[in-house]
């Protein structure tokens, strides 16, 4: 399977994105903001199609829109990022705009499936380099704010009293999520970012309650799901994103049922 360059490229790209998604997603789950992450990816869709309309690579439109939306969400309010209805409306609007942009740029329509569901097998060296750079920036930013981010996520009132700038931290975090979403969408598409950004960390939180172990398991799970998904797709000819989504769901529900039976056993 590794005799094909498109497969080695796919493994490299999926590997980078999986680790970034698993790590950033861990905090998304911890903060209960998974829906905000989902919304950012949909808003990114409008950006990606919009970029196509003006002749830019979709990734840049995706980046610009998710970043802008993440920052706006963070600045508008500490809490708006948790308001499902407001986010849902914006999300739907963004998808609508994405459709409008596609409508005016019809030759771009073949790209729509790739944007929505990912196209990791078409990744080239330039894309890998871009994703690696994006990954490094994302993780560096995450590392810079990790300590106050954890404090603010777990105990916002106390963190505020201790001098943590809550709004800045939450805005910076959503910007980081935006970067991760943009990278993630290159692999599994905007509709399936949950499979790498939410599935693995949610499963990790069921298996371990430690912070570092949780981050480690989350990244490892995401990586395993991405690479196994690729392998599975190679031998079955099913779409890669489907395979990753399937593995992600299986892992999550496996940890969920394991956790439940454990709790029952413990009384």
């Amino acid at each position: 399977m590794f005799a094909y360059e498109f497969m080695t490229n796919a493994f490299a790209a999926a590997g980078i994105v999986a680790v970034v998604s698993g790590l950033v997603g861990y905090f998304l789950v911890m903060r209960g903001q998974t829906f905000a992450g989902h919304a950012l990816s949909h808003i990114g869709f409008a950006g990606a199609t919009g970029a196509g309309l003006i002749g830019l690579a979709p990734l840049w439109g995706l980046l610009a829109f998710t970043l802008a939306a993440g920052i706006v969400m963070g600045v508008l309010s500490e809490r708006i990022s948790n308001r499902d209805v407001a986010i849902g409306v914006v999300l739907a609007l963004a998808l609508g705009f994405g459709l409008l942009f596609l409508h005016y740029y019809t030759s771009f329509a073949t790209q729509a499936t790739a944007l929505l569901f990912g196209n990791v097998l078409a990744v080239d060296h330039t894309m890998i380099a871009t994703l690696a750079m994006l990954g490094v920036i994302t993780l560096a930013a995450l590392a810079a704010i990790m300590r106050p981010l954890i404090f603010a996520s777990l105990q916002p009132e106390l963190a505020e009293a201790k001098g943590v700038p809550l709004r800045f931290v939450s805005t910076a975090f959503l910007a980081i999520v935006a970067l991760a979403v943009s990278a993630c969408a290159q692999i599994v598409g905007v509709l399936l970012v949950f499979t790498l950004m939410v599935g693995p960390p949610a499963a990790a939180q069921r298996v371990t309650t430690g912070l570092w172990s949780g981050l480690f398991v989350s990244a490892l799970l995401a990586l395993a799901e991405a690479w196994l998904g690729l392998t599975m797709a190679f031998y079955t000819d099913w779409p890669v994103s489907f395979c990753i989504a399937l593995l992600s769901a299986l892992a999550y529900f496996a940890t969920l049922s394991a956790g439940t039976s454990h709790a029952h056993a413990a009384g």
Partner: protein
Amino acid sequence: MSVVTLDHVTLRIGTRKVLADVSFNIEAGEFIGVLGPNGAGKTTLMRAILGLLGPESGSVKVFGLKPHRGNPVIGYLPQLRTVLPDLRVRGRDFIASSLNGERWGLPSVNQHDRGMIEETLDAVGARDLAARPLSDMSGGERQRLLLAQALIGSPKLLLLDEPLISLDARHQEVVIDVVHKVCRERKITVLFSAHELNQLLGTLDRVLYLGSGQAVLGPVDEVVTAPVLSRLYGTDIQVLRTDGHIFVMSRGRDVERTDHLHDHGHGHGHEHGHEHHH
């Protein structure tokens, strides 16, 4: 020595005046019960002491200084609203996150920090608890853990915002006893806000009663009286005393108890952590 001094202080949230022209002085080592109806400004007062809310007029002094965020001499236990139901973070990690949590960079806990955490966990009898995730704890266990956290760094002033809420009577007593014991040993001044006066009667030195924008600080016998409380509640209040208990009644209804039950209805309760497993 004065620990908290308010001098003609007016606090406002948006357009609502929460406290108007309030003055009082809390001395070192006092255990103050902070009481009053919902919305009377118990949390707001604590936020002012923490430096999160500046007074519109008048002056707030904490240990003689203007309040400022991140004051290391204050330990704070906020009223719990935001614990995510599915939060699977180990108690010890939860506490550790608050240590120097305002600094940038990666989280890290050194030997000294670890020692401080263990020491306060022991002080409130929560060492075994800390290995479990928060989502598996009962309300009482969680409050003990958070109390340990508030004590880290040897604060001189402890602000406890409704630490008894959603606890059953037995756990309420445990929390009060632990606070009382630790704070007396360490000579910590305590502001303990609560809905019900009776559990605190044996413990508190003075009571700070808030209501209708006013505040009255003094011994229970002078503050919890029909004339004072009628003024604070803005309605006709009777105070009944029967051996060791005080009942604050409005038109035959127990004011504190109905307040308390009302708050129960908002789903703060986590008495049984296992309900969150699916």
